[in-house]
């Protein structure tokens, strides 16, 4: 359903900071895939997601989503197909606005905004019902400012916003990296639950190998702007962290995985 073909991207070309981030990336996603994406820092994981979301545009190559070439679509146009959760809990919500106002913005993703009321009564009932599913007590705080919520609550809310209108593809960019381990697990569980319930296609970037193995039906490992390892189904279920480290060593020519990956 998503096809990335020969994607190249260089940041700061012709300067001392020139960096080739994506080096002829190819990827084919099937309907209902839940892919965890791992790789060292600078491997191009986040850039790949940002490329799909339209934050950056590829120098070369094409992005096709559901038979539609979206390579040149600006970010706000393709937003109607995508749900996104960011690494920074501040990124996904508007802090000075109420919980229900944030949800209302998300509920209208991909629709034309007019001069109708920003929130209607019927919507509120829907929001309360959805917030109850999060089990964080947010359903009684509809008119609280989002800035008052904790990082975990904000990420859970962003996740809900990203899936309130069923997206064709859900992009999770290290969405638990800024949370404490307990909250991170809760948000991960929640993501898994929402993806399963709505049978969404999703990509999740993570630095945590255990999580990468535990969640999803497919795992890809990136190194230097290409995919070096792609495994799914039975083979993925039988993976161990040691297998991944070995793969990583092979690819990087003995150079060892960074500390964060070993520690986690």
């Amino acid at each position, binding site marked *: 359903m998503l096809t990335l073909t020969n994607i190249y991207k260089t940041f700061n070309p012709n300067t001392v900071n020139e960096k080739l981030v994506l080096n002829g990336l190819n990827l084919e996603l099937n309907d209902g895939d839940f892919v965890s994406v791992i790789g060292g820092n600078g491997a191009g994981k986040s850039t790949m997601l940002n490329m799909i*979301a339209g934050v950056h545009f590829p120098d070369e190559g094409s992005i096709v989503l559901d038979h539609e070439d979206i390579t040149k679509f*600006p*970010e*706000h*146009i393709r*937003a*109607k197909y*995508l749900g*996104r959760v*960011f690494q920074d809990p*501040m*990124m*996904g*919500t*508007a*802090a*000075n*606005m109420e919980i229900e*106002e*944030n949800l*209302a*913005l*998300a509920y*209208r*993703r*991909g*629709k034309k*905004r*007019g*001069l*109708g*009321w*920003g*929130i209607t009564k019927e919507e509120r009932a829907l929001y309360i019902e959805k917030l109850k599913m999060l089990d964080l007590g947010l359903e009684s705080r509809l008119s609280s400012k989002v800035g008052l919520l904790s990082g975990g609550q904000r990420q859970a809310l962003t996740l809900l*916003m990203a899936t309130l209108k069923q997206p064709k593809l859900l992009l999770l960019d290290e969405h638990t990296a800024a949370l404490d381990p307990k909250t991170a697990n809760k948000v991960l569980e929640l993501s898994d639950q929402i993806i399963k319930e709505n049978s969404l296609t999703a990509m999740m970037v993570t630095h945590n190998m255990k999580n990468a193995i535990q969640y999803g039906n497919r795992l890809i490992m990136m190194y230097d702007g290409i995919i070096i390892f792609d495994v799914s189904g039975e083979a993925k279920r039988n993976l161990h962290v040691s297998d991944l480290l070995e793969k990583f060593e092979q690819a990087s020519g003995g150079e060892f995985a960074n500390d964060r990956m070993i520690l986690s």
Partner: protein
Amino acid sequence: MSSILLSLFGAASQGLTWAILALGVYITFRILDIPDMSCEGSFALGGSISSFIMVSLNWNPFITLLIATFFGMIAGLVTGFLHTKLKIPAILAGILTMVGLYSINLRIMGQANTALLGKDTIITFVQNLLPSAEMLGIKNSVLQTTATILVGLIFTGIVISFLYWFFGTEVGCCIRATGNNPAMVRAQGVNTDKMKIFGLILGNALVALSGALVTQNQGYADVGMGIGAIVIALASIVIGEVIFSRAKNFAHKLIAIVLGSIIYRLIIALVLQMGLDANDLKLLTACVVALALSIPVLKKTTAYIMISITLKKIANAIQIKFTVKRGRK
């Protein structure tokens, strides 16, 4: 004594006509988070257009207000275009529009200022609807001030109702969110460039309307009338926000700004009465705004914390004394 009261009354009426300027700047500065300098140009633009049409074309003063508002929208559109499409930093985009408007305003009026001598303005129109000064037994100037206050109340009322409605709509919510977190708004499928342009158009429209109203109130337009307008607007905003910090509802916040504008004019009238040179006014205003905007930083300094702790202790002590006294009774 009565002269002080009169000048305060006049100050209040001025505050109401200038309040719409503060509301316009509030949209760009607070809601959109853009320091929009073009408002200095569009304020004088409103005045120039209104006075030109009234003097040269003899049109109805009401209609000149609408036309002034419309041209303010165009000024906002230009700034928005420069900022979003041509990627010029917001503050510079505003300055470019402001500087360009200076020449345009001179072109419109054909001179540096235009007097509305003997012309019917919106103020005289309302004044004629009221009973005459002799019948009420008051001075003519008092009646004129009353008329100005009525006009000011009507227009600020209309503007506040409009803004309250507009920022509750889908587009209005998107504009508010754009000032808050543009990345999130784009992720929800909204063109943030468009929202910024809408906000700048709306803000400058109100600023131009205010310029036209002020011109009709003071009886002339001057090409330099916009100088310092943004600082005056910011002063009104911060005074309103500090004094009415409890206002949480959007409508209450807007009303707080209008009251802030009135209070600002009252303060000015008072310091002038106390003998401040009128030439020093802008410096005073600039200092007040600089101080008010630095409150978040000042709050973190030890001096501020010490003072606030001492004040609280004193307040507590007074309260204890008071309750003890009451207890004895």
